[in-house]
C-alpha cells in the first residue's frame, strides 16, 4: 500500500462570554425557559435593527492579538444567506470580506517533542442560530431561539496539522489562551467550543492537496481523535479501491465510529454573501487597539514564570497548575487565604488529580471552594488533624465541598494532643504486644512500625504518628 499523509485544518466556533447577544440586549444565560431570551432582533422580525455589542469586538480582538493575528482595523459584516428553521432571518450576519483578525498562528508541541506553528487563516465574528429539537412524539420540529444571536467567533486554521495528536494539541492550546483571556469558557461538551474538521489525504511527497471533507458533530477531544482516524481510513480505502473522495459535509456518529454524508442540499453551498446593510463599519483605532492590549490579563507563560518566582513552585508543578485556568484560579484563591502555596500546590497536584482520575472528571468540574481547602490546610498546619484524617476530609471537600472545621468537629477527628491519654494507650499497646517489644529490643527496629500501627488503631486514627513514634521510642528504651 502507498504511504499517505493526513492534512487537517480546523474551523473552531467559540461562544463568547458576553452577558448579552451580539446585536440585541437579550441575555445569553443558559437555562432560561424556551424563547424567554428573545426579541424582534434575534428572531428576525421585519423592521428590527441590529446594534453591535462592543464587548464582542473587544473579545475578538483580544483573541486575535493573543494568537498573533493582524487586526483588520477597518472591518465590516456580511450577510450569509440560507434557509433553515433555526435561522429566523433566513440569513446569518457573519464576516466574509474583511474578517476582524487575519494571518496569525500558535505554537504547539509535537509528539516528537518538537515545536510547530499552526497558522490561523482568519477569525471572524458571527451570530449563533437557534436550537431545533425534533419532537419525538409529534410530526413536527420545535424551535427555541434563546441561542439565536449569541456571539461567536470562528477561528479558521490553515491546513497545517498532520495527525489527531496535533489537532488535540492545537485545540488545547487555543482553549487555554481563550480561557485565560476570559473570552469564553470553551466547554466542548456544552457546545461553547465546537470544532469542525476539514480532512484530506495525499500520497507522501505530493505537494497538491487531496479532496477534503468536513466533519461536524464532534463534542469531545476523544470523539475528534476517533473521527480523524475513521475518516482517514475511509478516504484511504476509497483511493485504494480506485474511487474518488467527494467534497461533502459529513456527520460523525461517535457511537458507531463512522461518519455519514449529510443530505446534500440541492443548492450545495451558495450563500450569496453581500455586505450587511443594517450595520455600519467597525473602525478599530490604534488607541482602542492599545487599550485592549493593555487590558490583556496575565497569560499562561507569564503566570507560570510568576508562580516559580513568587511561590517557589517547581517548574513541573507550575506547569500542571497553569495548564488549566480553573485550576490556576483555585490555586491562587486558596493561596491568598492560607498563604501556603506549597501545600496548596501539593493538594492540587496529588489528591485532586487522583480523585479527578478516579471519578473520570475534567478539571472544569471541580466544585470545591478555595475557602474550604484553605481551612483544611490550616487544620493540618496546626497539627489539629493528621495526614490520613486530612485525606479523608479532603475527599469530603472534593465531593461535597463540606466545611472541614465543622466536619472534623462533628466527627471527632481532631488529633488527641493530650500527652497523658496517648501515653497510657501506648503503655497498654506495649503490654499487649510482648513479641514485638522483644523483636524491637533484639535489634529488629522495624517492629516499631507494628506498634505505631496498633496505637493509631487504638486511637481511632486521631493521633499524630510522629508523636506516637517519639513516645514509643522513649518508653521502649
Amino acid at each position, binding site marked *: 500500500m502507498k504511504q499517505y499523509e493526513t492534512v487537517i485544518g480546523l474551523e473552531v466556533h467559540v461562544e463568547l462570554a458576553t*452577558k448579552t447577544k451580539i446585536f440585541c440586549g437579550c441575555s445569553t444565560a443558559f437555562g432560561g425557559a424556551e424563547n424567554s431570551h428573545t426579541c424582534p432582533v434575534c428572531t428576525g422580525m421585519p423592521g428590527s435593527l441590529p446594534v453591535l455589542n462592543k464587548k464582542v469586538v473587544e473579545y475578538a480582538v483580544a483573541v486575535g492579538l493573543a494568537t498573533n493575528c493582524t487586526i483588520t482595523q477597518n472591518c465590516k459584516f456580511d450577510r450569509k444567506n440560507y434557509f433553515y*428553521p433555526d435561522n429566523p432571518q433566513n440569513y446569518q450576519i457573519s464576516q466574509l470580506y474583511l474578517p476582524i483578525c487575519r494571518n496569525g498562528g500558535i505554537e504547539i508541541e509535537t509528539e516528537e517533542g518538537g515545536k510547530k506553528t499552526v497558522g490561523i487563516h482568519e477569525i471572524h465574528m458571527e451570530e449563533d442560530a437557534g436550537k431545533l429539537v425534533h419532537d419525538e412524539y409529534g410530526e413536527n420540529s420545535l424551535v427555541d431561539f434563546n441561542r439565536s444571536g449569541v456571539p461567536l467567533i470562528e477561528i479558521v486554521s490553515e491546513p497545517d496539522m498532520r495527525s489527531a495528536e496535533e489537532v488535540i494539541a492545537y485545540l488545547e492550546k487555543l482553549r487555554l489562551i481563550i480561557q485565560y483571556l476570559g473570552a469564553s469558557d470553551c466547554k466542548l461538551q456544552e457546545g461553547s467550543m465546537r470544532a469542525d474538521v476539514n480532512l484530506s489525504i495525499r500520497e507522501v511527497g505530493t505537494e497538491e492537496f487531496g479532496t477534503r471533507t468536513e466533519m461536524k458533530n464532534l463534542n469531545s477531544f476523544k470523539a475528534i481523535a476517533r473521527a480523524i482516524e475513521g475518516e482517514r481510513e475511509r478516504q484511504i480505502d476509497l483511493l485504494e479501491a480506485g474511487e474518488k473522495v467527494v467534497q461533502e459535509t459529513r456527520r460523525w456518529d461517535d457511537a458507531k465510529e463512522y461518519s455519514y454524508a449529510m443530505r446534500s442540499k440541492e443548492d450545495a453551498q451558495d450563500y450569496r454573501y453581500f455586505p450587511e446593510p443594517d450595520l455600519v463599519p467597525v473602525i478599530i483605532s490604534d488607541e482602542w487597539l492599545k487599550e485592549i492590549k493593555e487590558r490583556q490579563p496575565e497569560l499562561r507563560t507569564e503566570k507560570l514564570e510568576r508562580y516559580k518566582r513568587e511561590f517557589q513552585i517547581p517548574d513541573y508543578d507550575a506547569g500542571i497548575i497553569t495548564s488549566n485556568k480553573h485550576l490556576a484560579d483555585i490555586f491562587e484563591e486558596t493561596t491568598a487565604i492560607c498563604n501556603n502555596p506549597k501545600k496548596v500546590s501539593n493538594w492540587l497536584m496529588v489528591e485532586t488529580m487522583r480523585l479527578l482520575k478516579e471519578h473520570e472528571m475534567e478539571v472544569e468540574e471541580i466544585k470545591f471552594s478555595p475557602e474550604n481547602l484553605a481551612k483544611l490546610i490550616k487544620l493540618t498546619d496546626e497539627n489539629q488533624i493528621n495526614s490520613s484524617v486530612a485525606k479523608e476530609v479532603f475527599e469530603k471537600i472534593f465531593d461535597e465541598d463540606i466545611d472541614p472545621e465543622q466536619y472534623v468537629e462533628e466527627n471527632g477527628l481532631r488529633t488527641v494532643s493530650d500527652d497523658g491519654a496517648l501515653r497510657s494507650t501506648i503503655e497498654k499497646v506495649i503490654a499487649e504486644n510482648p513479641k514485638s517489644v522483644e523483636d524491637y529490643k533484639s535489634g529488629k527496629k522495624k517492629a516499631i512500625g507494628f506498634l505505631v500501627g496498633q496505637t493509631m488503631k487504638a486511637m481511632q486514627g486521631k493521633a499524630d504518628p510522629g508523636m506516637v513514634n517519639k513516645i514509643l521510642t522513649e518508653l521502649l528504651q
Partner: protein
Amino acid sequence: MANVISDETIEYVGILAKLELSEAEKERAKKDMGEMLDYIDKLNELDTSEVEPMSHVFPVNNVFREDEVTNGDGREKTLANAPARKEDTFEVPKTIV
C-alpha cells in the same frame, strides 16, 4: 440585450430563493436579470481603480451597544408571531439535519 440568462441559471436562482416560477414568470425574470447585468456592465465602463469601495451608504461607523441586558422575558411577544406554537416553542414542519 448583451447578457442572456440561461434556463439553468433561472432554475438555480429559483431554487436558492425557494421560488417556484411558472414558464411565463421565468421568461420575464430572464429578461429582467439580463437587463440588470447590462446595467452593471455599463457601470463597469467607469474607471473606479482609484476609488475606495463603499461599505455603507452613510458616512457613519462604530455604532455600539454596551454589554448590558436590556430585554426581559420576550417569550409571549415572540411567540405571538408563531404560525404554530407548542408550549414555549415554535412548531415547524419536521426538519432533518
